[in-house]
């Protein structure tokens, strides 16, 4: 096999692996949006929070993994509850700019809080998987990427089953579909809001742990990555779980391919901007994305 093909395959595999994490973040975003019509502009900070807490529990406090891991997840659930109860519930019914700004606000609080607690140095992340690459045919693949992808697949599959078959999952779908009908059928809409935030923070935390492993360390640039969630959800459709997954992988692949092929031409950094260029194009031609409901009001 020639070199070009190997290069491309490598970019594809990295893209799919990174895209899996984007899909996780987008899943959290879409859940919140579907359930409560809240747009979370701080998805990156949720990821950052997860990454730092897991770093702190594993490496700083030196808990064994089977303690550290549940502890991290519990903390992120608590964070989700605090955000939903304390910040967003009082703002139900407020104009969209207020809701957007308040998500910027708590994102800023999370970032500053982490900074106060642990400083802004890059932290080495516990390597849960070896980074020694093995060969899949002629293409070198690092186990971190492979594992992260497998974990993401398992998680997404688990969540799909949860939404499809469990009672709570069905109630969440009902809430997303029509709040009044859900209320009249005895679904506690408030609980569903809280639950969607908890799931979002947990999923973001897992994304943070995976990203920490892939990058080998956590620092505050993780938060910038969070904004990539917007191209993903717009491509997939704001209110579609399926769209979040497909969009995540597509955007991951796209940014790696464009980075690999266009960087030499434009002199670097294409990876950061390509998803947003795609975002503008989608907004112009198909604002509801691949799987979203076409509910755009034209004036």
């Amino acid at each position, binding site marked *: 096999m020639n070199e070009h093909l190997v290069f491309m395959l490598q970019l594809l595999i990295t893209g799919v692996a990174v895209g899996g994490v984007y899909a996780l973040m987008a899943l959290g975003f879409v859940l919140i949006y579907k359930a409560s019509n809240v747009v979370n502009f701080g998805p990156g900070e949720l990821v950052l929070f997860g990454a730092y807490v897991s770093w702190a529990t594993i490496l700083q406090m030196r808990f064994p993994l089977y303690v550290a891991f549940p502890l991290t997840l519990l903390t992120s659930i608590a964070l989700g509850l605090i955000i939903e109860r304390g910040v967003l519930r*009082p703002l139900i019914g407020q104009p969209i700019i207020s809701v957007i700004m*308040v998500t910027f606000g708590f994102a800023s609080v999370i970032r500053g809080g982490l900074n106060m607690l642990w400083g802004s140095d890059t932290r080495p992340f516990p390597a849960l998987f070896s980074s020694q690459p093995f060969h899949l045919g002629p293409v070198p693949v690092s186990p971190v990427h492979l594992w992260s992808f497998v974990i993401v697949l398992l998680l997404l599959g688990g969540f799909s089953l949860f939404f499809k078959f469990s009672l709570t999952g069905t109630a969440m779908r009902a809430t997303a579909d029509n709040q009044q009908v859900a209320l009249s059928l005895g679904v506690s809409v408030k609980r569903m809001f809280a639950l969607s935030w908890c799931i979002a923070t947990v999923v973001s935390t897992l994304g943070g742990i995976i990203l920490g492993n892939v990058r080998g360390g956590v620092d505050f640039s993780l938060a910038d990555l969070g904004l990539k969630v917007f191209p993903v959800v717009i491509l997939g459709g704001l209110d579609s779980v399926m769209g979040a997954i497909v969009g995540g992988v597509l955007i991951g692949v796209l940014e790696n391919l464009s980075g690999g092929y266009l960087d030499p031409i434009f*002199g670097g950094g294409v990876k950061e901007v390509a998803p947003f260029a795609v975002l503008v194009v989608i907004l112009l031609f198909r604002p509801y994305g691949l799987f979203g409901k076409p509910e755009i009001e034209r004036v």
Partner: protein
Amino acid sequence: MKCGGFRVSYRSDEQIFDTYTPRVVLVVFLGLLFTIPMFASTYELDVLNRIGIAIIGALGLNILIGYTGQISIGHAAFLAVGAYTTAVLEAKIGLPFYLAIPAAALLTAAFGLLFGLPSLRLKGLYLAIATLAAHFITSYVIIHWERMTNGVLGLLVPPATVPVLGLPLDSDARIFYLIFALVIPATFVAKNLVRTKVGRAFIAIRDRDVAAEVIGVSLFKYKLLAFLISSFYAGVAGGLMAYHSRILFPDAFSLLVAIDYLAMVIIGGMGSILGSIFGAIFMTVLPEVLKLTATSLTGVYPQAFGFIASTRDVIFGLAIILFLMFEPQGLARIWLRVRSYWKLWPYSY
């Protein structure tokens, strides 16, 4: 003492200040403002200058968000276009400031029109995301168009020079006059703009765009006009930034700057000119107060500096959250309440 509004002519109804006292106070205040450079320290002047620039930028953003209801997270990109255009015109072409700033503002306004185009089809959240994308694309171009902007190395700007006198505005005290000579007309124009036909059209669009279109407000025209005016203001603010900091880095126009400006509008008060001014002052002074606290504490607790510096994010975020929850109309509303309390004090009933 005034105990009500008894207006008998349209002229008196249209006045901004209906008694003499506030007019006299305003004139005296402005007069005193221009004597500040004679006794203030460089540091204080630097803060004041940044407040002035922030006021112009916040006024522009408030016209767009507070009055027209179009959410833009791309204000930092507008500022960047204004700043870099001014810098390039001054440094590479040698235009004097009184041509460079208007030219930059016009170019930024054209750029704002381009930003505004999606607003014709997209609303609320979608528009916010579109402007977010535009922000990233703009900052990418600024970082990578190195021949023009010098990229991350930074672009040096020669000081603005006063014509005829040949006096370079190279110190904080001198640039102060240029900045505030622009802040005053900017405020005046904004205050009057929102009371005219255009301003009412903006407000109608904000409150209900479909209804506005039905009663004959052309959404196409006024939405684009809002973006145009807003980015014109940002262009002026950006141009002043170029002359004030004299060196431009792409970092100075990050997304955080856009969020800072949004916070000025929210904390100051959406849909209030006075609020924009309060917000600009609040958001500029807050980090300085924290910095001063940190410096004064470092003698006692040597580690305090880093700690207090990072509290900025927390306090800033908390301020946004608390204002949105408890005083959504911002500082302007608080000011109004305090004023009307004292107006009738102590017989407020």
